[in-house]
């Protein structure tokens, strides 16, 4: 069976240790997470974890079923099966070794619609948002100038179209 990347989002109750439960499940069942991000949702008491996992259909099915078994997990959606938008945010610090580089770097950044978030005599730091292809392309372009450091959030995703939320609104658990 063919292995491919799946973007899966998991809506969970905000309980202490819920991320540990998810991460532990991945580790002990031998599933590989390529990236993972967590944030609160529009509903108080609920968080959404988005992760990218690669595997064949059977593996991904097991991932979803095992996640669904966790009591704190409310909904699991594999976006790969639907139309979705996904974005990632990267901060990248690029070396400015000679003054003329600065102009060229800024020109390329503009083409990528990357924002400058920090300026230094010997470095420029950019914020880049987009899909994985854009991230890789930007990194490639910057390589010749010298990349000092990068950090990426991992992908987040939502299905397209207004009428189909990834998560049906559920009653938020009472917060004690």
């Amino acid at each position, binding site marked *: 069976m063919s292995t491919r990347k799946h973007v899966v989002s998991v809506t969970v109750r905000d309980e202490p*240790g819920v991320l540990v*439960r998810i991460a532990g499940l991945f580790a002990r069942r031998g599933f590989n997470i390529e990236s993972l991000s967590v944030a609160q949702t529009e509903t108080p008491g609920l968080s959404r974890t988005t992760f990218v996992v690669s595997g064949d259909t059977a593996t991904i*099915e097991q991932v979803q079923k*095992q996640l*669904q078994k966790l*009591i704190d997990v409310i909904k699991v959606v594999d976006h790969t099966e639907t139309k979705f938008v996904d974005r990632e945010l990267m901060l990248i610090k690029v070396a400015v070794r000679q003054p003329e580089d600065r102009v060229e770097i800024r020109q390329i950044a503009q083409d990528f619609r990357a924002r400058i978030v920090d300026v230094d005599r010997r470095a420029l730091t950019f914020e880049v948002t987009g899909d994985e292809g854009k991230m890789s392309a930007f990194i490639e372009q910057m390589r010749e100038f010298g990349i000092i450091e990068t950090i990426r959030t991992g992908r987040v995703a939502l299905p397209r179209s207004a009428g189909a939320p990834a998560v049906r609104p*559920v*009653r938020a658990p009472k917060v*004690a």
Partner: protein
Amino acid sequence: MNGAEVLLHALERQGVEIVFGHPGGAIMPVYDALYDSKIRHVLVRHEQAGAHAADAFYRASGRPGVVFATSGPGATNLVTGLATAMMDSSAVVAITGNVPTALIGTDAFQEADVYGITGPITKHNYLVKNLADLPRVVAEAFHIASTGRPGPVLIDVPKDVQMAAFEGTEADFDVTIDLPGYRPTVKGHAGQIRKATEAIRAAERPILMVGGGGQVAAEEVMAFAERTNLPVITTLMGIGAYPAGAPQALGMPGMHGTVTANRAITHCDLIVGAGLRFDDRVTGKISRFAPNAKVVHIDIDPAEISKLVRAHVPVVGDLRDVLPRLGDQLDRLAIDDWWATLNDWKGRYPERYATEKPLVSQEVIELLREATGGDCVVTTEVGQHQMFAARLFPTSKPRTWITSGGLGTMGFGLPAAIGAAFARPGETVVCVAGDGSIQMNIQELATIAKNRLPIVIAIANNGVLGMVRQWQELFHAQRYSEIFLADSNPDFAKLAEAYGIEGHNVHDRETARRLVPEVLARGGPALINFVVYEAEKVYPMVPSGAGVDEMLIGDQEPDPVPDAPEPAGAKA
């Protein structure tokens, strides 16, 4: 009310009458409250035994078993018991004390990250930091443990929470369960049931395989089997869910299954799997498992379906719902040819073993069955004796066969006998053990003696770790590494007597024949140590990694049976 009293009150509200446990520093407020409580506490001598007893209490009664332990070492001692309960889907609620919340995370005395440690081996767990949450948490814990696919739930309660003053009222104990992430599917999907019906009707050589899930649905399994005339295989966990002696029973499948069951799997064209998870000890090498069969898999846990064996027709639901609905759409199947083949195999491969040698485990176990008529609760330890008991001493009623199947926990059987004895008062419990396993929780002889429990412990004592020896003989060139026990085993009869329990050492066949009915008539507590032949092996055996069609039949005649008629289009 303080937190400890809240806890006990919440347990009473769940109908808890008995708990197993061992006190310690961080759970002292609970034990103090217990002093005035209606709840009966059974003091075990090791927390692991408490967890196994609670596990067996559930398995024998269907009511969740409860175990108490203190923080740190008390709680870590529960780990094996919780993992055992998790693997065998047993409803256990474990309550652990913890150090006061202010000390959590400081490496305090007897502190361990019990919440973290037990996460992977429980269905769910809680660390209760606010007393106000406790009534809800207890109600949720029992709900989660006992519904859907049962499993253990742990509640960790810091000592200051146990001592805090409860500001709520009785109304706080009327908990409405609100778990949006936990809604087990009980009712089978009508469309899937229809597909399953069609698959069963179309089959020429179908079998029904019943696992541990069948323990809650024995009546439904029986009715379904009778109506359809399906051959019935019961896994190690399914023993008792369908009577072993019934004409349609083919016995146990898998590594030490019967020739008939394994051959039926290999040649069938349809498996109806009911409440089982196709464990590797059942399937052997997956690619050789039931190569010609379609699979209808009925289970309450969707994650088990197509996890190992691909299901052509998945049905998620409770057997008590699905089997009757499936049966309603079916009549007696016309599978006489298949039955003729199966009965031929059954006739050729009865259980057999040599008795011209010294006393062997198998005949000891048969003596136990004859003396009880199979009308008792059987618990086992883990090893050769367990497999012999599964084949020669399977019980006929649900919830009466109690063994550690998934985790294979040596040390399970003796404390399990304690839990079963409390769960089924008035019934005799026979604990079948080996001389290796029995020593892993032997301190529980004290608990048995103290409570004068009707437990008869039968040790098939071959002086070695028999199953390990068997593997070493067959697959490790007779390099017997670290298996010899005989030179340092205790005198088991004297040991029992030291605890105040009747004890016997038996070396010969005649004494065994005389003594077993006598002791069982008295009903225990008693321990009989049978010194048996060291080199006896469990056959048939499917070597690890082999297919179930590649079983070693051992002392039995070489396999002369031609293969069953090949179905059209089947793999060679």
